[in-house]
């Protein structure tokens, strides 16, 4: 049997449909945001966790390269030198530093290839071909899973492809493909059969090349060599008796390999199988989303507080009457908290449904960015539960204070509320405002705003969050985008070609120059170095070094100290970035000791450049020598006649500002020429990189801006509610103003001014908050170390303008309502 209390809740909720819709919408938005964002986080992380097993994760990943193409990396018996080294150590149970305690070691190779379906004309697609040191079905570290078909056999032209590539290109088991041949006269029409599709959930990187699963082909090692022509492995994954042993020995491992094989170690990556790094990276970003979601839900709670507060004030008389009929304070509490809960229910149900749908869709969309794959529609229980619970709890919590204080009204107060309640006058604010040199109706507006402190605070908080979120996110992304722009503008080449194995510079350069549209070709080298500043502390740091030809117009450095090679491109020395200078505690003139893979040299710092990353720049020949990318001139142990080889070729095009397609065309032509000479290479379309970075930024930016738009919407609704409440409470005042001659304009501006005052106040408080927010977002996204954050002040101006506009708009409707009421409506009782 429905009793009066519940009946009143239902009827009250139904009788003011507009208000119910407004509040429920705010809750809906909050719940929707919470559920969808939490779902995305949960689903992505769960998917990654499902797909991986910690027993299979590598503890050390070692990346290697060869000094030049064709270097021999096998033992006399044809075994890979590194694998042989480690096997030998294990057989002898060697305690040799670097090799002790290895339980498993496997090698991975990768190279770029070009493929097409038979009979589909001249156009080749690019892809990566990947091979392993073990047969497919015995790979232990980070293996692929067979999804369809059977593993390819060696020597019979069989391959497998990643399922994401199969999906993207519409390929399936049984289809065949052809590869662009190495060397001009090799047969081009050899067909390879796809015998399997696989799912490779683990991150796969081979040093310089980040291999995307959407373009990944798998073959047995010998077959891969046939197709792509490389000689050795690009990386080795190792597992040890325990993780710490592996981590401790990584340096020694590098040294041991450098000294005992022909491979050049390029660096290593340590991982803890018990906390897979990919999960962490995804969580770092999505955690921020979680926080934003909760915040927007809480902000919509403030709206509920405002509305319930207004209801309780409106219904003062009814509360008093109910008390006179025997309702206890608990009865009244039940009723108004019940109204809040009802709003919560009405908003939560569709909010959860929408959130589940959008969350699942977003998770599927974002999965590739997290290098995983979500196949089907999934529901995150955690998202639903948190969203639903908060959607119901937040309104009740929000209603607590106004209901408790509003139901305190005594019967007398409630029933004899006849005139305008006149309590203003004693406080400090009243006296201060009295003295301000503003016209009377502005002072009236100020007084009105200040009078309802509780409500003012809530509205200000809501709007402040919105403003802070908007400005903070905007500032952060502006700064990031600017930095990225600057970064890309530093490098003035459009394409980067990296042969699979280092080649002779002039040979390759001439090949490239034959292609139409190429203006020039420059050499480049990249390598990780250990650097010690001899003129300050003793610590050594691992810093990426970039080698290039300073005479070439290929890198545009912004010197803050020293001159570098600007006047003399042959000067001896090294240039460091401002970020590197900071950690090395170095200035121009200091001397540093630079070492890599056993070789070292000393250089003077001849310049410091403004650059957000920790890097050093060297002449490429110096770096190649250091790294060991040399062609042995014939005399072993005599480095003076070793010819340095560049690792990369930087291509500058004739056309300024070419499109992605134009660059692609050049790259295609270049790689065809190289392949004809048996040289495989990977390439980077710099223009494409820039645009895709920009797009990624845009995606993130949009998600964050969406959240701040949500908060702005809730904030505006909050302001609208506050002012509507004010209009209702001050009806009599408005009637009085009208009766003594106030025109519509006066009344409208009164409320607009109040709204704008609240807006400006919120903006003011939001300014420092937005600074903090931008900083923590940068930190959370991992950019903080790289970027020196200078808050772009124009964003504050943008925020202020936006806030004033929102405030003016949100106060327009209540203002018009106020002006429209006829005096007789207002002054008539009951």
């Amino acid at each position: 049997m429905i009793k009066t209390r519940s009946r009143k809740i239902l009827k009250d909720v139904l009788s003011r449909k507009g208000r119910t819709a407004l509040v429920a919408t705010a809750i809906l938005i909050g719940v929707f945001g919470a559920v969808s964002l939490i779902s995305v986080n949960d689903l992505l992380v769960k998917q990654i966790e499902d797909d991986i097993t910690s027993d299979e994760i590598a503890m050390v990943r070692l990346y290697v390269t060869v000094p030049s193409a064709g270097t021999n990396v096998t033992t006399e018996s044809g075994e890979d030198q590194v694998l042989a080294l480690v096997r030998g150590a294990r057989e002898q149970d060697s305690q040799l530093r670097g090799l002790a305690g290895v339980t498993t070691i496997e090698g991975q190779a990768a190279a770029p290839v070009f493929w097409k379906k038979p009979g589909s004309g001249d156009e080749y697609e690019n892809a990566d071909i990947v091979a392993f040191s073990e047969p497919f079905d015995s790979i232990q570290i980070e293996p692929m899973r067979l999804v369809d078909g059977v593993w390819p056999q060696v020597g019979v032209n069989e391959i497998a492809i990643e399922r994401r590539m199969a999906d993207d290109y519409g390929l399936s088991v049984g289809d065949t493909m052809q590869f662009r041949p190495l060397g001009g006269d090799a047969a081009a029409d050899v067909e390879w059969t796809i015998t399997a599709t696989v799912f490779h959930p683990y991150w796969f990187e081979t040093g310089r090349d980040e291999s995307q699963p959407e373009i990944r082909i798998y073959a047995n090692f010998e077959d891969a060599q046939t197709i792509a022509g490389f000689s050795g492995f690009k990386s080795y994954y190792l597992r040890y008796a325990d993780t710490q042993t592996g981590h401790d020995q990584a340096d020694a491992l590098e040294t041991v390999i450098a000294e005992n094989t022909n491979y050049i170690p390029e660096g290593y990556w340590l991982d803890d199988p018990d906390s897979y790094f990919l999960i962490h990276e995804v969580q770092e970003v999505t955690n921020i989303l979680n926080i934003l979601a909760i915040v927007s839900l809480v902000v919509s709670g403030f709206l509920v507080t405002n509305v319930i507060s207004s209801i309780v004030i409106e219904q003062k008389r009814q509360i008093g009457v109910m008390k006179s009929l025997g309702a206890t304070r608990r009865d009244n509490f039940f009723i108004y908290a019940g109204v809040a809960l009802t709003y919560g229910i009405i908003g939560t149900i569709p909010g959860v449904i929408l959130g589940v749908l959008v969350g699942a869709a977003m998770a599927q969309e974002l999965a590739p960015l997290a290098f995983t794959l979500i196949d089907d529609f999934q529901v995150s229980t955690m998202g639903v539960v948190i969203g639903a619970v908060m959607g119901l709890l937040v309104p009740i919590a929000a209603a607590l204070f106004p209901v408790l204080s509003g139901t305190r009204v005594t019967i007398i107060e409630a029933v004899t509320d006849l005139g305008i309640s006149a309590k203003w006058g004693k406080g400090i604010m009243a006296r201060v405002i009295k003295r301000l040199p503003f016209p009377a109706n502005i002072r009236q507006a100020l007084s009105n705003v200040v009078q309802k402190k509780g409500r003012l605070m809530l509205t200000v908080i809501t709007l402040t969050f919105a403003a802070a979120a908007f400005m903070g996110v905007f500032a952060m992304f502006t700064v990031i985008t600017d930095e990225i722009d600057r970064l890309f503008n530093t490098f003035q080449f459009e394409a980067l070609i990296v042969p699979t194995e280092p080649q002779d510079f002039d040979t390759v350069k001439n090949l490239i120059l034959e292609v139409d549209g190429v203006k020039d070709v420059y050499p480049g080298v990249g390598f990780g170095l250990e650097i010690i500043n001899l003129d300050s502390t003793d610590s050594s740091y691992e810093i990426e070094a970039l080698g290039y030809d300073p005479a070439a117009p290929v890198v545009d450095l912004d010197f803050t100290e020293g001159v570098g090679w600007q006047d003399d491109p042959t000067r001896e020395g090294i240039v460091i970035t401002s970020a590197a200078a900071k950690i090395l505690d170095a200035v121009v003139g200091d001397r540093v000791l630079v070492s890599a893979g056993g070789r070292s040299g000393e250089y003077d710092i001849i310049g410091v450049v403004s650059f957000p990353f920790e890097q050093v720049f060297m002449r490429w020949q110096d770096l190649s020598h250091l790294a060991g990318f040399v062609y042995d001139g014939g005399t072993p142990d005599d480095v003076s006649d070793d010819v340095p080889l560049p690792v990369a070729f930087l291509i500058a095009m004739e056309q300024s500002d070419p499109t992605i397609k134009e660059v692609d065309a050049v790259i295609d032509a270049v790689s065809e020429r190289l392949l004809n000479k048996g040289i495989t290479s990977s390439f980077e379309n710099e223009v494409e990189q820039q645009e895709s970075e920009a797009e990624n930024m845009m995606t993130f930016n949009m998600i964050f801006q969406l959240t701040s738009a949500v908060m702005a919407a809730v904030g505006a609704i909050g302001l609208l509610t506050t002012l509507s409440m004010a209009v209702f409470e001050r009806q009599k005042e408005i009637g009085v103003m009208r009766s003594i001659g106030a025109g519509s304009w006066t009344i409208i501006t009164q409320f607009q001014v109040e709204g704008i005052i609240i807006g400006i106040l919120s903006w003011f408080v939001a300014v420092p908050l937005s600074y903090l927010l931008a900083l923590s977002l940068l930190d959370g996204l991992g950019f903080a170390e790289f970027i020196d954050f200078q808050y772009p002040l124009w964003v504050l101006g943008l925020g202020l303008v936006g806030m004033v506009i929102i405030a003016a708009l949100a106060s327009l409707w209540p203002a018009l309502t106020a002006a429209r009421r006829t005096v007789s409506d207002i002054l008539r009782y009951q």
Partner: protein
Amino acid sequence: MIMSNGNNKSVISLQNVEKIYKTKAGPLRVLKGIDLEINEGEFVAIVGPSGSGKSTLINMITGIDRPTSGEVHVANQRLTNLSENAVAKWRGRNVGVVFQFFQLLPTLTVIENVMMPMHYVGTFSGKRKERAMELLELVDMPDVANKYPSQISGGQQQRAAIARALANNPKVLVGDEPTGNLDVVSAGLVFALFEDLVSEGTTIVMVTHDRDLAGQIPRVEEVRDGKLMEHEEIDERLVAR
């Protein structure tokens, strides 16, 4: 007892005024064909039982409400076709309204309240404060000028409201039970002030259910069930002479 010194110039004219409210219980006919002429300088009491329509009647005079049909002319202005905005402005200049419950704006001081009508209408520019002080002296309250309404008594609030109603020197002063909530002393003061104003030429129309008060006012009109009664028919129980 002051003699009514109304001259022959008509300042308030209601012709066949009808007011019908649409309520959920059906149309409610509150005023039924009211004809009323009031000349300048008259002091008129409007009496009648509750729900008779007297408040509605004076709302017609002040322009706060509009007739469903009929004509209303006040202070040389035809009110029936003016917009809400225009009426408000006209009212600010021509009519002083005093309500039953004080109705001062709580976030302004007493003197600012008195200055408000001048502000809205745009009169006495540059001399507003001065004039407001004069008005407060007229109601014998110059010392509370800078206080807020919550800091003065009910009687003082009412007097302040009257001062405000006089701010623009209106031709007509209309009060709806202006002494309904006052103690005996304040009520007497207010009434004395009204009599002074009338002798200076202001037209005052006042609704009251206080028969003693009504008995002191030169002209009395009774509204009964939406109609104006003939003078011979006025219920003597409403007026104590």
